[in-house]
């Protein structure tokens, strides 16, 4: 759901603005709207999610209406319209992965973190959710973590323990 009541002020760092300009340069004159999806990824990588204020600034930058940005941000699954845990563990839940135990791994992650799918742990660090096929079915079960979408394959309870411990250590 889009949070339109949101009033968080956002200021785009200079590096983000110049990255956006570089992206806009990839398309022909007058087709700058093509930059929308890549730019939303860049913005999300900086802020962790897409607030309506951030999206309004993207609209301005691309000289399009704000609704054109909201429309896109709500259609695709990768854009977060709510603040999320620092690490969102996205576990594939589609058929081929389930054949080799994806559902069990997802349950295990839930137990381990002590939260339900979509909820954030009290320390604000973790949440997890099921996602559809990640094109890694031969190395199942798998999960990914943004913003660089690092992959963790052939998951076992032990490798999940190790991963969570590592991420906690990174704080």
């Amino acid at each position: 759901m889009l949070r339109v009541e949101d009033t968080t002020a956002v200021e785009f760092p200079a590096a983000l603005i110049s990255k956006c300009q570089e992206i806009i340069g990839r398309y022909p004159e007058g087709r700058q709207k093509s930059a929308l999806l890549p730019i939303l990824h860049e913005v999300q990588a900086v802020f962790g999610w897409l607030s309506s204020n951030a999206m309004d600034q993207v609209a301005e930058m691309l000289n399009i209406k704000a609704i054109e940005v909201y429309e896109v941000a709500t259609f695709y699954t990768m854009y977060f319209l709510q603040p999320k845990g620092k690490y969102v563990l996205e576990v594939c839940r589609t058929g081929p992965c389930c054949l080799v135990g994806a559902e069990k791994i997802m349950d295990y992650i839930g137990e381990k973190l002590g939260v339900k799918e979509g909820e954030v742990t009290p320390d604000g660090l973790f949440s997890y959710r099921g996602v559809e096929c990640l094109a890694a079915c031969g190395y199942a079960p798998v999960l990914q973590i943004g913003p660089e979408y690092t992959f963790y394959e052939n998951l076992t309870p032990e490798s999940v323990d190790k991963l969570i411990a590592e991420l906690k250590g990174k704080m």
Partner: protein
Amino acid sequence: MGRKLLLEHINVPGINTFQVYREKGGYRAVEKALKTMSTDDVVEEVKKSGLRGRGGAGFPTGMKWSFLAKPDGVPRYLVCNADESEPGTFKDRYLMTHIPHALIEGMIVASYALGANTSYIYVRGEMMPQVRILEKAIAEAKQAGFLGKNILGSGFDLELYVQPGGGAYICGEETALLESLEGKRGNPRIKPPFPAIAGLYGCPTVVNNVESIAAVVPVINEGGEEYAKIGIGRSTGTKLISASGNLRKPGVYEIELGISVEDFIYSDEYCGGIANGKKLKAVVAGGSSVPILPANLILNLANGEKRLMSYESLSEGGFATGTMLGSGGFIAFDEDQCIVRNTWNFARFYAHESCGQCSPCREGTGWMEKVLHRLELGQGKSSDMDLLVSVSKQIEGNTICPLGDAAAWPVASAIRHFRDEFEWHVSNPQLAVKQNYGLAHYADPLPPVVAAEA
């Protein structure tokens, strides 16, 4: 050992870099095409090769290229489809990760053939690591003079960009992909007009799968006729197969089209048999959208001959007893797997991924998901199977894009071949939530075909 055209050097250390790829003979196809061939020659060579689209539909690539409109003064585009989201398919990710220059080289040759001076590789957003890999490969190729202005002094200019998507299966459908690349929601367009006439920004556009584009490199290096000698009949060349599920050695394999399914599953060169000493129950041979077949029908045709890994052999028998090669997403199910549960899982996938534009798809996929879920939970009714078949028939063929069909076929085929398992779920609700139906007769030899009376 079968011939490897795409993955020959996959184990060479550093093959992901320009330097090593080049040392191994990389970018020869660009040199050959740009220095010694006209654009029409390249298209002709691809036609001769018999190469068929590797994204799922299997449409001949050379023919697709020759349909591209060429009005004066209008730019043309080549867009590579690297959205790879069809459940069971992971070959494009593999290729882009390990040998990215094969795709870049193919993009240069294909762009030259089509007269495209700006081309895009649309990669699903979740493949951010592959986006970075491709961006690096592009920078290396540009540095070496294979991209940019006046490539190799040929007068041909090309800029290549990588576009990340936002996470949506439907953006693999080519017109939805183009909408997405224009910065919009991924709603498929009504065809005609086809992209060859009005595609990206309304200009003539070719959309090709990663593997199709990479395969242009060996086609040019070897020559179309040589390429066509590999494979069987109209299934020419090699194909990347993504093997997943209950196999001893899942992974990506390059096969010569025409090997037997049995060889592919059981030989040590490929999947090495079923994992944990179990028996094979069923296979989805071409990604989640194609009909599922029980073990006996995937290994053998209805007439008892061996089934082969080719476009024709896999579809032999039509919907009654056949399936499709599709994207080459080969998913194997062992005796412990529940067909009802998997069918529900796939139905949920399609319900989740429907873009919602057409009512039969939007409503029908959701409805099938609900009915399958209650069957799986042991709350189904004996009329549910007929209901599912009837809903699937109402979706099939009544939608803007083929996602509707893709959602309908897995359900219809599961009920066709595994109806007794669905019925068991209805008649044994308590058992069905606790245990699986098992192998039943699905791995039995096919009954001999009784000769039809004249």
